[in-house]
């Protein structure tokens, strides 16, 4: 990944350092960025400050323990943490494990593909921009949907999803997945 490493976002570099080197300083940096956002996220879905911090603690420890599963070619750090956060919230609320798809395991020693990682990051940047450009009520809808406050029937009745952005993200993901699966089959 050598020179192009500089262009990859700090978050991703921290996460890779946690994954590959068990780097505590990088983990602390991830904490500084994500813990207050996670707390805000949990409180938005109705938890008290105390309950929110308990889940933040749980999520941060899960990030540390499951770091080996982080694949920057397939997920943005925030996307990966988002899913962990929602899972923990649900597992705790329902006291049962949420059904998750089989994990795709990256071949050990797979060479990092900086252009793919950067491509995902650019997509994520576009997504965030699209979010900030939405009308307030549309943005509120998106937040509600991804905070788990809307049923799928309610989501399908909404038209405000930035679908164009999701579509190009899907295309990017598909290219990578096909590439990975081809490698696996060889």
């Amino acid at each position, binding site marked *: 990944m050598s020179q192009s490493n500089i262009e990859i976002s700090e978050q991703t570099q921290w996460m890779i350092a946690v994954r590959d080197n068990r780097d505590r300083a990088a983990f602390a940096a991830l904490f500084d960025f994500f813990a207050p956002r996670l707390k805000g996220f949990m409180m938005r879905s109705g938890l008290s400050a105390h309950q929110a911090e308990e889940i933040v603690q749980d999520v941060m420890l899960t990030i540390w323990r499951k770091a080996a599963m982080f694949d920057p070619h397939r997920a943005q750090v925030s996307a990966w943490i988002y899913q962990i956060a929602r899972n923990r919230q649900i597992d705790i609320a329902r006291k049962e494990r949420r059904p998750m798809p089989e994990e795709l395991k990256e071949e050990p020693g797979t060479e990092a593909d900086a252009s793919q990682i950067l491509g995902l990051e650019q997509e994520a940047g576009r997504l965030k921009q699209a979010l900030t450009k939405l009308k307030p009520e549309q943005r509120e809808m998106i937040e509600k949907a991804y905070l788990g406050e809307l*049923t799928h029937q309610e989501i399908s009745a909404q038209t405000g999803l930035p679908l164009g952005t999701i579509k190009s993200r899907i295309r990017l993901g598909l290219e990578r997945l096909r590439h990975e699966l081809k490698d696996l089959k060889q």
Partner: protein
Amino acid sequence: MSAITHHIPDAMLAAYAAGNLPHAFAVVVASHVSLCEQCRVALEAHQAVGGAVLEEIAAVAVSSSLKNDILAQLDAPFRPEPVYERNGIYPGPVIEALKGRAPRWKKLGMGVRQDILTADTNGSVRLLYIPPGQAVPDHSHSGLELTLVLQGSFSDETGRFGVGDLEIADEDLEHTPIADDGEACICLAATDARLRFRALVPRLLQPLFQI
């Protein structure tokens, strides 16, 4: 194996990513994603939107001790979550719902068999075994029904469903799925309500059959 042509609707994937699908449906969605590249990357795209929401949400300062509390626990022993691998035709989430055991088929008549994996007031998930040429007992839906084909195929008024295909049926669809010739059709079926079989099984018997 022919390509999957019936996928998870976008809104359902978004609700799944957000963790707001009933458990029974989540088992089916997780199973389909395990089999389907297209829905896997679509799910990843929804997770990316969730990630963007997380990054843009109003942050709330955490208490001063939280960071050190967490750093102090990094080396603490912990129990890793169990991983359920695919086994034959059954994807990981089905193996998890089976709790690692083999299916225990119960006869429903006409060669049709089922194994109820979970059932409560919020819905049920079961495996269905339908011999070739045999119809799934005629039924209407009081809620939504998701059917994922794991082996063989079936056809009904809306089309043909092969391995990996997902059929979504609501109250308005009165359909008669019939297993195609060839291998017996094995499906994973979930409802968010109890099925009402119109003719074959009197309503009184429903609790007995749990269908």
